[in-house]
């Protein structure tokens, strides 16, 4: 306070009208700051929810689709091979649908490639080797149709390419997309510290201002300041309610939706891998120990006391999904029994019987199909749950930005008008 001009301002501020003026400026600034901050925070929340629905979740689903359809193609190609020279139309169609689905999901997932270097690398790897894979499968098929055993060697090479290159890339893409989904979920549910702090400061100042105005002017009520207080209080309440509602909904979406989908999808892909192992062991006729070993690893990961299915059942809350997972557990048990019988027959030299058990209408094929369907249904239910919860979160935020902005206008106007009414009396 050295310059004469500052001293003049300071002197003016010591007078009652001067103080009223300072109060008006502070209140208007605080109300404005609080309101705008709240509106921006709500908008960010809403944007994150929008991203969940329009970007993160579809990309995670696309990545999961790539992973699943490639695993399925691997298992289906091997099953078709076991059928002899001419594969059944249904298996051929399933393989073709898998490849088409993988291609189109890959194109969808390529949207993620521009934002994440890791996803970009996976997409590039997948697009490079998918046509090579299908080429090998067709070569295998042509040789098999001609009755030549080299067809099985091409199929083995194709499967090796799938397992060594394509599936790891698909898994990486899937993991980076589910990671991004979780990050977007977090982005939708920050704790509104700044808003609450600003809101409390604004409300406190409004109360102090009203006490001051009442003492200096002997008026009990100031309508403008009261309205400003009420409006700011409503903004704070709105922000808190919205934050809590969105957190609850997104928490549910994560627990009963995305996290569950991830768990179930992992189990489903493990089942597909095990099925591929089972059929490939028979395709290679007698030298499939490495596939059988992999089957044992994967099926131990899937079933068992600490297996993926058990974990999924223990964490699932939705009774419909739980029923499906319990069905899947029973079906996996049946499959396991059939698988052991297949191994027994094949190991004792009854190859044709083993093949019948593996792909016929009784035995491993129906048990595996039922297991896969149960998991697919459970995934569909969980995905629906996710969409519902995010939808609920979005509707909790409906009109919040506009409402908060209108209330802010009311708060700012009320504060200014309220103080002006008193200030007027000094003229």
């Amino acid at each position, binding site marked *: 306070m050295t310059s004469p001009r500052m001293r003049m301002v300071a002197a003016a501020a010591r007078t009652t009208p001067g103080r009223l003026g300072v109060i008006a400026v502070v209140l208007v600034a605080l109300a404005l700051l609080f309101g*705008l*901050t709240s509106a*921006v925070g709500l*908008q*960010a929340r809403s944007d994150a929810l929008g991203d969940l629905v329009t970007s993160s979740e579809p990309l995670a689903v696309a990545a999961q689709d790539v992973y699943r359809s490639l695993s399925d193609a691997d298992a289906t190609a091997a099953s078709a091979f076991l059928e*002899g*020279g*001419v594969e059944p139309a249904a298996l051929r169609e399933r393989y073709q649908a898998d490849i088409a689905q993988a291609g189109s999901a890959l194109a969808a997932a390529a949207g993620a*490639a*521009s*934002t994440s270097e890791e996803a*970009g*690398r996976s*997409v*590039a*790897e997948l697009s*490079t*080797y998918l046509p*090579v894979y299908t080429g*090998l499968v067709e070569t295998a098929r042509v*040789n*098999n149709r001609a*009755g*030549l*055993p*080299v*067809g*099985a*060697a*091409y199929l*083995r*090479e*194709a*499967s*090796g*390419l799938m397992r*060594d*290159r394509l599936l790891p890339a698909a898994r990486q893409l899937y993991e980076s997309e589910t990671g991004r989904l979780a990050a977007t979920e977090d982005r939708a549910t920050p704790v509104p510290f*700044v808003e609450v702090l600003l809101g409390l400061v604004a409300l406190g100042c409004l109360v102090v201002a009203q006490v001051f105005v009442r003492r200096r002017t002997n008026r009990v009520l100031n309508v403008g300041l009261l309205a400003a207080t009420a409006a700011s209080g409503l903004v704070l309440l709105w922000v808190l309610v919205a934050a809590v509602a969105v957190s609850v909904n997104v928490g549910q979406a994560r627990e009963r939706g995305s996290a569950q989908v991830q768990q179930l999808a992992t189990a489903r892909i493990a089942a597909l891998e095990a099925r591929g192992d089972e059929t490939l062991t028979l395709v*290679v*006729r*007698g*030298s499939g120990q490495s596939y059988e070993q992999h089957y044992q690893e994967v099926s131990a990961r899937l079933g068992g006391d600490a297996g993926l299915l058990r974990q999924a059942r223990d964490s699932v809350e939705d009774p419909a999904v739980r029923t499906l997972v319990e069905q899947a557990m029973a079906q996996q048990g049946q499959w396991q029994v059939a698988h052991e019988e297949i191994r027994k027959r094949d190991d*004792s*030299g*009854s*190859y*044709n019987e083993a*093949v019948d058990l593996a792909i016929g209408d009784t035995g491993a094929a129906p048990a595996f199909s039922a297991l896969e369907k149960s998991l697919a249904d459970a995934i569909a239910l969980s995905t629906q749950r996710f969409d519902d919860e995010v939808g609920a979160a979005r509707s909790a935020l409906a009109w919040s930005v506009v409402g908060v902005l209108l209330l802010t206008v009311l708060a700012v106007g009320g504060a200014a008008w309220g103080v002006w009414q008193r200030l007027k009396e000094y003229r």
Partner: protein
Amino acid sequence: MRGRIIAVVAAVCVVAGCGSSAPEPRAERVEFTAPQPVGASVLDTPAPTTTGPPVPACDPAASLRPTGPPVVAGAGPSVAAVVAQGRLRVGVDQNSYRFGYRDSFTGELGGFDIDVARQMAAAMFGDQNMIQFVTLTSGQRIDALKNGDVDIVVQTMTSNCARKQEIDFSTIYYQAGQRVLVNVGSGIRDLDGLAGRRVCSSTGSTSIKNLAEAAAKPIPVGVPSWTDCLVMLQQGQVDAVSTDDTILAGLAAQDPNTEVVGPRFSDEPYGIGIAKGRDDLVRFVNAVLDRMRADGTWTAIYQRWLAELGPPPAPPAARYLS
């Protein structure tokens, strides 16, 4: 606080559409490596020769002399036991094209070994279908005989002194040897033409050991299964395949653009494996083999399955223990 202000500015910008720069579309550089059969690898150092206990010298080709033509009645207890069980149980391969393999259309087994086995069943039962095939891997053959899971093994099985300590063999029914399979028009005529070139063989086989020790110094490439070698040859990843001519014939039969060239440079006499202590069965099998050599059956089977190897040679002569 500053973050919030920036956020306000950013929000305004988003609404106004300022500063929107789409990422530059750019193709990722991809290192492409052509797929190879799983487990294919260049053999850097030749596998050390396994040093087991010393094997006493023997004549691997010599077997028990038949008592006459193959007649079941009065042949002996082992033959009688097989007749009593109603079918002959035979251990075979299902993975060696033209020797023992499964037809992918019918699911039935076929090949040189399979036909030889059927001759045995025909001699015993008068019906070549009174037979139960048990498919075995190479490593299972001796145990299957010892455990009594099969009566005989007809599965490209080399008769040698080490194996003769564990099981008995019939007389030699096929004389195999290592040769070379190349692309037609490659200009390679024999093993010496493969100096410095990549040659495929099965990991852990005697064939790949022979390659590693060959004077011409080819580069051996090991794969898990013989058909993988044909894949590598077709994909241009090796210049040749080298192993027993029997297996090469099976590979050549799958690709008219390949041919078996050069002389044999190893001896692999195939015999029918039988568990020890079943001498009458060995004599019976040898009698059937004798008849097949004499009446042209052997030559007919050769022509049926092994035409790729050229005109049929004379069947290998039987040698008997004195």
